[in-house]
């Protein structure tokens, strides 16, 4: 079944934009419910401390205070769960300490909540939360994952020895890899930190809950990426509520980048409290709370070694990583450094021997979980830094070294998928193609000349490459389950054709900036041969949409879009039966194209609207067919999808100050078939800038007391408009062979490819000036680059 009216593949302007550009968006904090109260929290100022006492007397007497609850009040409730179980190498289950809604015994990171205050106004709630007196006994603190595992280090959880959540390995037997490395003609070694990042969606998290005593039903509006997932986790695992009596709505959401797909303690607490007090409860994070509580990203300490033979072929990769999980396990925290990181260490290369040893560690810091790319940026950073550095060390060209080691092109249909050494089977790829295209756009043949000239003029010019792959569209449920996922990872798509031929589509995917209301409508309009205006996409409401796993891992179009296509196929199949009956033909002889059901080889046809009406007014109708035209599908993908691409950065480094200026950024991405090129390009831009942010500007810094020292936008630098150039983007299309749209997903690609390209470019610039520096710790501030140049 192919597109019939040419809408698929067009840069259709977004249908959701009108409400956003006129101030009519409806984000959670915009919602005001009658009689609503406001919540505020008393939070720990210490990273690690015993709670000796909590005195709420003065606070209770303050104006407007409705209720106060402390850790003792919620001791009987479960904590928020982790959704992915990873076992120790010896088979033992990972350590999974309780993550309580409010802390009663000891606080484990700055911002850990000790009490919740409900008051008539926001200001009264904040005033009273500040008036609660908590007596703490401070404890020694651990913040660095590599240090936290050493004997004698303070324990974040008293029953977790050495702060180790689990250890884990993947790949070929370690002895084989050790031997290959020891026999290699050249080994490039890199010890580095993939620093901790703060996701920074511009909309802070916000929740508003209410309880209707008559229907005994809860409603929660939440700034989430996954409303059904939140309902399931909260009702079944935390609060023990009947799931069908909990209505969760994710209205307009102001960016997520991973940080809003997890189930947070505040979400469950406001839902629990609303029934207690019999009034709606609203809580919206202040930005300093977002810094302390929204799950952070990355935070790996790694030693990686890549061995080469005399010809420049990679013979082995050996990796050892400490992954910091923070103080508690966030929803997907455990799968990020393992199944979204270790499994990507093949990269685009034919490396025959790979082994990763990983230790996941608790520290007195904010929990760490998936942030745009989630594990895959860490993998691509590791590989792409190593290969560029190896080229410098061996005096080889970085592009040539890649061409020499690339997996040859395969389409997954005529050539099989590529089986990696680290569990995955890539679906389709043409890695030579994206690098070739990138080099053309760069005019690489001229670049080295320019670099020499620049050096003579007192500037250091550098180019950095990154040829990345990612695994997205997560994931086949059976595979995810075998690897420890505690949920399925299918998606739900319902297509309801109304009697007049208008179409309502219900998707379990959730849009928080991606433009699903446009892209998904294009898919439906294209497949059914009807106008875009006749299609509405409904998402984010657990009472409207049958079920859903939500949007993360670049899975919306690949999994959610495919579910919709499956339902469209059922609609067309049923439509053919109805048409056949009315046109007195055989269903096998009916063609569907351009919104028309036609008897093959004749001009006898019925429009899509005719069939819709007949399905609901079934006067002349097949005997054994149910009326109606409404189908739902659960689509469980056969495999991950594997987008890939080539990112190239050109930087100029000031010899005197170490300041880095990003001069050019080229992104050639292959995300499979593209439904809306404008939206895909926008996704790439956004991802690229988050990756550039990691390379040049961002990094959460904890001091030895466990205080986040840059917990505001005054201190933590997310990229601004004047930090960046215009981007040069292009696409190559290698369709995904295993989903009906041939799509792969584009949400994270930019963030996965860009970071190593920028850092490689700075290193290249420094080498061109004679500074043979292997690594500079990200973010590459002027000070760090300047110091590196001083040796």
């Amino acid at each position, binding site marked *: 079944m192919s597109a019939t009216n040419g809408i698929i593949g067009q840069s259709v302007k977004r249908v959701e934009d009108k409400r*956003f550009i*006129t101030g009519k968006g409806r*984000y959670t904090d915009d919602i005001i419910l009658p009689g609503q109260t406001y919540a505020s929290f008393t939070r720990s100022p210490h990273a690690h401390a015993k709670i000796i006492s909590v005195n709420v007397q003065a606070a209770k007497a303050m104006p407007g205070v409705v209720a106060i609850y402390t850790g003792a009040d919620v001791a009987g409730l479960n904590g928020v769960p982790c959704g992915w179980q990873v076992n120790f190498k010896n088979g033992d289950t990972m350590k999974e300490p309780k993550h309580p809604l409010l802390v009663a015994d000891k606080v484990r990171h700055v911002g850990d909540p000790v009490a919740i205050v409900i008051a008539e106004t926001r200001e009264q709630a904040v005033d009273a939360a500040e008036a609660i007196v908590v007596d703490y006994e401070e404890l020694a603190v651990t913040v660095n994952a590599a240090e936290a595992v050493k004997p004698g280090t303070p324990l974040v959880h008293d029953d977790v020895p050495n702060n180790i959540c689990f250890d884990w390995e993947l790949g070929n037997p370690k002895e084989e890899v050790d031997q290959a490395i020891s026999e290699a003609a050249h080994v490039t070694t890199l010890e580095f930190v993939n620093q901790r990042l703060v996701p920074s969606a511009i909309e802070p998290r916000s929740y508003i809950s209410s309880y209707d005593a008559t229907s005994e039903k809860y409603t929660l509006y939440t700034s989430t990426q996954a409303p059904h997932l939140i309902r399931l986790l909260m009702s079944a695992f935390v609060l023990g509520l009947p799931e069908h009596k909990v209505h969760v709505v994710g209205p307009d959401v102001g960016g997520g980048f991973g940080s809003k797909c997890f189930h947070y303690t505040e979400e469950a607490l406001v839902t629990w409290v609303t029934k207690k007090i019999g009034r709606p409860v609203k809580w919206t994070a*202040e930005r300093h709370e977002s810094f302390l509580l929204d799950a952070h990203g990355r935070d790996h300490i790694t030693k990686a070694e890549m061995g080469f033979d005399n010809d420049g072929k990679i013979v082995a990769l050996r990796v050892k990583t400490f992954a910091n999980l923070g103080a508690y396990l966030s929803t997907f925290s455990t799968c990020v450094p393992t199944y979204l990181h270790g499994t990507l260490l093949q990269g685009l290369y034919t490396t025959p021997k790979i082994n990763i040893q990983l230790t996941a560690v608790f520290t007195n810091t904010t929990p760490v979980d998936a942030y745009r790319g989630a594990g895959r940026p860490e993998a691509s950073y590791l590989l792409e830094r190593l290969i560029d550095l190896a080229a410098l060390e061996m005096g080889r060209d970085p592009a040539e070294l890649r061409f020499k080691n690339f997996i040859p092109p395969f389409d997954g249909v005529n050539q099989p998928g590529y089986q990696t050494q680290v569990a995955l089977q890539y679906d389709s790829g043409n890695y030579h193609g994206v690098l070739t295209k990138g080099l053309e756009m760069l005019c690489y043949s001229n670049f080295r000349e320019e670099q020499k000239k620049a050096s003579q003029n007192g500037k250091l010019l550098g180019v950095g490459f990154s040829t990345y792959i990612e695994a997205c569209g997560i994931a086949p449920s059976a595979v995810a389950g075998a690897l420890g996922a505690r949920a399925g990872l299918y998606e739900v798509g319902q297509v309801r054709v109304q009697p007049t031929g208008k179409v309502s589509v219900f998707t379990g995917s959730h849009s928080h900036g991606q433009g699903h209301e446009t892209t998904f409508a294009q898919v439906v309009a294209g497949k059914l041969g009807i106008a875009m205006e006749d299609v509405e996409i409904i998402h984010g409401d657990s009472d409207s949409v049958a079920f859903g796993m939500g949007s993360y891992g670049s899975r919306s179009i690949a999994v959610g879009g495919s579910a919709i296509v499956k339902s469209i196929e059922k609609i067309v199949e049923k439509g053919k039966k109805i048409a056949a009956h009315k046109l007195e033909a055989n269903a096998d002889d009916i063609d569907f194209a351009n919104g028309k059901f036609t008897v093959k080889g004749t001009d006898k046809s019925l429009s899509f609207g005719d069939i819709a009406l007949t399905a609901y007014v079934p006067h002349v109708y097949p005997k054994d067919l149910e009326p109606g035209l409404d189908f739902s599908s659960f689509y469980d993908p056969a495999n991950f999808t594997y987008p890939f691409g080539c990112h190239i950065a050109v930087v100029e480094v000031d010899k005197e100050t170490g300041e880095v200026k990003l001069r050019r950024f080229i992104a050639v991405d292959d995300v499979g078939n593209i439904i809306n090129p404008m939206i895909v390009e926008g996704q790439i831009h956004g991802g690229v800038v988050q990756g550039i942010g990691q390379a040049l500007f961002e990094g959460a810094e904890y001091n030895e007391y466990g205080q986040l020292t840059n917990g*505001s936008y005054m201190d933590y630098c*997310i*990229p*601004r408009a*004047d930090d960046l150039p215009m981007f040069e983007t292009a696409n190559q299309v290698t369709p995904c062979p295993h989903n009906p749209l041939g799509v792969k997903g584009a949400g994270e690609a930019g963030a996965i490819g860009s970071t190593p390209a920028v850092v490689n470019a700075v290193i290249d610039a420094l080498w061109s000036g004679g500074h043979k520096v292997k690594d500079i710790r990200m973010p590459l501030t002027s000070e760090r680059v300047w110091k590196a140049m001083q040796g």
Partner: protein
Amino acid sequence: MSIKIQVKVNGVEYSHEVEPRLLLVHYLRDVLRLTGSHIGCDTSVCGACTIHVNNKATKSCTMLAVQADGCEITTIEGLATNGELHPLQEAFRENHGLQCGFCTPGIIMTAVDFLQDFPDPSEEDIRQALKGNLCRCTGYHNIVKSIKHAAEKMKEEVAV
């Protein structure tokens, strides 16, 4: 203690008794229920709450409601005239200058003021003008493009 203020917002006169500590952005959002101006930070950095006070772009979290007494205010809700979008609103839609839309009202209000003073800006001018507004979705590329296109469109309109 409450203080009485009078303001004109999007052409409508309002009079309210407000707490002295009430921020202008909270007055707009909670009292007038104009929720198009958003709050993205608590340090006056993100710019999501940018409005016009007496025709100048202002972060409405940097002012108390009582300081706005006697002022004329325009918010994103008041930018379109007679149902016709402002050229900047149109340009953001045409050029995919927004994704999640949360920073968008503030950025558009900043850009409207900027183009009043600099009707023919270079790319660098635009990027400088956006320093006080954070966007985490778009990477700014299409925002810069939107403002450039709007400037061209507005110049054409003036020429006609």
